[in-house]
């Protein structure tokens, strides 16, 4: 049963590693915004890649 004296410190080492991972994730701002990533997930890259539906027969509607 004395293996437990080895296992407990080992488990602590693992746990501390996870704690530091958590602290890093908070520091890097991953908990700042929990709303936008869920929306971003729905945004399909394909929409952006799609050729625009502009029929373009208008006489040069240049903006600037």
């Amino acid at each position: 049963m004395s293996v437990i004296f080895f296992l407990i410190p080992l488990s602590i080492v693992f746990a501390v590693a996870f704690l530091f991972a958590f602290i890093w994730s908070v520091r890097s701002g991953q908990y700042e915004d929990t709303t936008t990533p869920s929306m971003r997930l729905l945004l399909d890259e394909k929409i952006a890649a799609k050729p625009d539906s502009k029929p373009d027969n208008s006489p040069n509607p240049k903006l600037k």
Partner: protein
Amino acid sequence: MKAACFHCGAACGSAAHSRADKSFCCAGCLAVFELLTENGLAGFYQLAEQPGIRVAQPTATNRFAFLDEPAVRARLVDFADDKLTRVTFHLPAIHCIACVWLLENLFRLLPGIGQSQVNFARKEAAVAFDPARVKLSEVAALLASLGYEPELKLADLDAKPANPPARRLWLQLGVAGFAFGNAMFFAITGYFGLDAFTGPQLKELIGWLNLLLAVPVVAFSAADYYRSAWASLRQRLLNIDVPIAAGIVAIFAQSVWEVASGRGEGYFDSLCGLIFFLLCGKLFQQKTYNRLAFDRDYKSFFPLSVTRVERRFPNRLADVADKAGSETGAPQESRVSLSELAIGDHLLLRNGELIPADAKLLSGPALIDYSFVTGESEPLAKQPGDYLYAGGRQMGGAIEVETVKPVSQSYLTSLWNQDAFRKDRTESFNALTNAYSQRFTKIILTVAVGAAVFWAVVNPAKSLNAFTAVLIVACPCALALAAPFALGSAQRVLGRRNVFLKNPFVLETLARVNAIVFDKTGTLTAAGAGSVTWQGAQVARHSNVETSNATRAEGLDIGMSSYGELTDAEERWLYSMTRHSTHPLAVRIGEAIAGQHFPEPVRSFLETTGCGMEGQVDGHEIWAGSAAWLESRGVACSSRRKEAPSSPDPTQSEPPHVGSYVHVAIDGRQRGCFVLASALRSDSGQLITELSSRYELALLSGDNERERERFRALFGSDALLQFNQSPLDKLDFIKRLQRDGKTVMMVGDGLNDAGALKQADVGVAVVESVSAFSPASDIIASAQMVPRLAEVLRYAKQSVATVRAAFLISTIYNIVGVSIAASGNLSPVVCAILMPLSSVSVVAFACGMTAWLGRKLRDGELRVESRCAAASQLSTLNPQLTGGAA
């Protein structure tokens, strides 16, 4: 049928632009559309229906030039070097998924822009760009031209907190959770007697390990509790954090002592668990509050609208000539909700209306009352061209302003929550929690000290144990959380049904209400539903001879149309007058006679609340108001006249005698009166019956007694019906009720009875389509929720009952837990299980119950807009004055 703008969804006027089968309301929207499609961002329009923001005017490129000043720039950017600059803009216009997509594809629009990232909840976009290719001002101008006007508050940027509070809370929570999990894990070995196999060394090791784990929790995670407790003690108050802090310190001290002296392994697992669950509750609370704040700041919060004036451009005359020739060139007025306002819009603000955004005065002498903002009640006179700040209130005639800043919903909310409008009676504010927690803290401290003293005499070994155990097991967090959670979620439930509370604690007062006072106009009667008819003063033909001889002394001949129907000119004068007032009756008359009139300037406009309005149009002195008011000015009013069949409209089925009369005198001579048939809201009767069994009801009206019988029948014999009430009378009436020990709810339109609304324990402002913001009220309810008032009241009672039930659960738990603890028999396991169980169950109960009860609250979500549309259709269908009774 008018098309909706493909970009922003606003109705396209006659000046609409179209491109590729799509119509646009303005050049600004079209420009954005073209910019997006040219750059392959047409996908914006696939993500949501009409996702854009109205851009009234293309942004001038040099508008943000000041951002390139090195000093300004340095304060604004987050990070800058030669190759990359990062800046975070606050963009209040962000509102949907398409915004996120567009803003994160910004690099396609302007070469030199790198990655951009949106924080939806905070409405921020962080943009990285290459300073060699793009200037900061160009980025800002690009955002503005897309409709996302950056909100630049340089002053706020001075001290950016290194660690935002939310981040700190997450860290505290993480550390506490880590320690709690591990400490519990180790402690289990002790609970199950594993040390039987390994000897006492394991117990000792675990004791020290747990102590090690607990140190960062006690020092870092719980730090805010000591700070708050200390601050409260210094003010000689006992807040809820005092026993928490005392408990934490006591447990920690005792556990350290136990471990150091080798007596046991202490209560570190319970301690970490306690702090972990407290922080969980705190985070949950913060999230809920953030979401509430988001709901409030977002456009859905206030159902407010303003009158926007759109002038048609002369060169568009041809387009519309076929529609209505006579209308062209006239300023087109439309009611728009605050969220649709864009910079540069022209607004018409009438007497008593609030300036929704910083604006420039265009026309009309303005007298601005800034008492909402500054507390200064003396109105300031302003000249055209002057700058007006949001939150001011126009007194007197109508003015036209041009907005120069976007509407800030949160700013208007903060006005609402200002101290000046807080009720004086402090006991009603947050009473439930404070009273309870004060008592709780005292009792717990007494019991803890009592137990310590008792055991010090009987069995000194148990003394400290009992003292700390009482503090450990007593769980004040349930008390601290129950009220904010239950009432906060109830506020959200009501908000979704267009009943907006000033703050969650209004519900506590609402539940105590036992007398309800209705202001007649606009609450029980539905504006816009009844017809408006003109009754020429044909009785005046007979009575004039005797009564207005005095005014006739100058021998003025009135002319051919002096009696009976209004002439075109007279209608126009009256129309011009009504444009200046926000009184519901004036608005209805204005709508009815708007026809094809151009408003004429009105001089020396004056509105006397509860009486009427006066002013000079085209050299004529016009008075319109109650009979009593006109009579006090020497104009005889034919109120004794029996009701003639006034409504020639055959579809008019309601009894003709229900209605308000607005008497009109021109140049001191009675001209007749408008009869505004006021249809009672369909479920008013049911509402009154429902309420009258449980509440004392009263009706106040500024009108005369004509309708007494009808309302007597509606309200029953017990109710107090008061007519001919001035605003001051209404205020006194409320005061009298309060002196009799009643808790009074006043339901009014929020404009003409602001004093009474403020005096009442709960003031409810009912808003129809057009409404002026009334900070004196505690609740803003949309008109279609009025028939459901009984349900709202019931819901408030149930919510408060839920809070009380949560208190009861927590009290039972505490009595059980504390008595075990005081007897000195508390084992660490029981403590560790009971503590979190109590908090979780109380919070779950509070939130669950309010949500479940809220689901039962019938859904009253008729869209406000659709009602507006219906109302305006009605007035266009019947724009003519239906003729006189003669």
